[in-house]
């Protein structure tokens, strides 16, 4: 069988190239690049261009206008906090799902993805019912920054869990058992053996959660009340500027978000490269 395959492969390569000088990939490549340009690249380029309609000073004036700057500070600050909480809680959830033979963990495992599948505005309505003025548990976070935090925690919940979980599943338990038999404490085993293995996955998931929190719109609209300078996040600020037809203002803040997202994406790529090299 393997002899046959090694006979066939070089032959087909030669034949395929001779028959059709890579016309297929040229067409599909053209289609993919055109679609990507029409849908993503040209429109995003237009955002950046419009941000600089009035030059650098115009851009800076828009970004540094009081409410825009407040919205950006709040968004970045909240996203960092959300990323950190997700780093801790996401890892703990993944641990519970993989290592703890808790009854009903399959249900939890399915539920974890709910924030991915749930429309963000539905999440917004749901959260204001539980944490709003009519809260049945008496916790009213509406129009407060903690309300924004809850909304962002909700929508970013699955990222760290879903990146750490497969790594934990694949981990070999031999090393841990060897360490335990040599007298290592639970904490030492976690710190010296488990943590180094799952750190890249934790980093990747945290980065994704940060990016998601940075760009979130629908779930924060209701609970935050969008008080400018207090609970208004960047995406909601941009939405307001679009409604006012203030293109430069919307485009300038969008550009800042885009740049931060790009940096985050680049960071994620580096992390994934690091993971690939470790494997």
């Amino acid at each position, binding site marked *: 069988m393997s002899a046959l395959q090694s006979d066939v492969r070089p032959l087909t390569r030669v034949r395929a190239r001779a028959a059709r000088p890579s016309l297929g990939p040229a067409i599909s490549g053209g289609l993919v690049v055109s679609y990507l340009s029409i849908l993503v690249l040209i429109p995003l380029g237009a955002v950046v261009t419009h941000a600089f309609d009035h030059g650098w000073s115009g851009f800076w004036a828009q970004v540094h206008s009081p409410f825009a700057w407040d919205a950006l500070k709040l968004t970045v600050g909240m996203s960092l906090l959300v990323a950190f909480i997700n780093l801790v809680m996401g890892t703990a959830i993944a641990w519970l799902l993989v290592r703890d033979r808790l009854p009903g963990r399959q249900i939890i495992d399915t539920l974890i993805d709910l924030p991915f*599948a749930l429309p963000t505005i539905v999440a917004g309505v749901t959260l204001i019912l539980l944490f709003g003025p009519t809260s049945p548990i008496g916790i009213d976070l509406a129009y407060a920054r903690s309300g924004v935090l809850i909304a962002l925690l909700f929508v970013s919940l699955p990222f760290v869990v*879903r990146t750490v979980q497969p790594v934990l599943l694949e981990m070999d338990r031999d090393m841990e058992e060897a360490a335990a038999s040599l007298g290592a404490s639970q904490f030492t085993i976690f710190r010296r053996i488990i943590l180094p293995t799952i750190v890249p996955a934790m980093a990747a998931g945290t980065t994704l959660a940060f990016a998601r929190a940075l760009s979130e719109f629908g779930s924060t609209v209701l609970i935050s009340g969008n008080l400018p300078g207090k609970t208004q996040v960047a995406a909601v600020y941009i939405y307001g500027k679009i409604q006012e037809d203030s293109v430069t203002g919307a485009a300038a803040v969008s550009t800042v978000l885009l740049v931060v997202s790009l940096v985050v994406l680049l960071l994620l790529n580096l992390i994934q490269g690091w993971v690939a090299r470790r494997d």
Partner: protein
Amino acid sequence: MTNNAVTDVRAGASRWTLRVVVLGYLAFLLVLPVAVILYRTFQHGLAPVVDALTSANAIHAYQVTAVVAGSAVAINTVFGVTAALLVVRHRFPGRRVLDALIDLPIAVSPVVVGLALTLVYGRTTSTGSWLAREGIQIIFSIPGMILATSFVALPLVMRAVVPVLEEIGEEQEQAAATLGANAVQRFTRITLPSIRGALAYGVVLSLARALGEFGAVAVVSGRVVGKTETASLYVLDLYNNFDQTGAYAMATSLAAVAVLSLIVSRFLRPKGSAA
């Protein structure tokens, strides 16, 4: 898995702490919100819910959502498979850049997506006014909503298909080629059957994302009630108009679709991958 008794006892306390913390967190963030919205939706019985979901505006919103999400998912499926084949099967300059660019929509805020499309295809722009002369309106109309939805769900099909394509390799197709199968036959008889599961998974994920899209569609649709309003936009509209029964009913119906797609995707999810 032969943990000895001593470590089991020592691990007991920390295990229970972890359980309480994690389950408490999930209860607050996931379970309670879902329970509350279910209670609020059905607290006056089933009749008001049925009335709200069968009102003319609600039915129209569902229809708009179906058209927009259906078209966007169809376009993205074709694009996703084409892009996946291109990136996996061919080596060309700029391949890695293309690969990375396809992920870009994940990191872009939905509102920025809406703004970006408006700035290029809006009626006041040169592209938009040229299209308007040709009788095509993009922004504040269905085509723009399809574009916006395609943008936000762009990488999902491709990312589901790429790992499977990498795994199956090209040997079978090359064998078929030597036996005289043309490109279409090779695709429909060999490639498609082997990526079917992953493709279905990607389509379900895209559909869930497309059905729920809010921010991008809110910007490009103009939110014209009874015309360009999708189900998720209609939820906010009802809420802002103090029609809470209607808002909760619509939200619950969308959540039901989300849960259904979750369950379906769980069966379709390729073995060994958790994401």
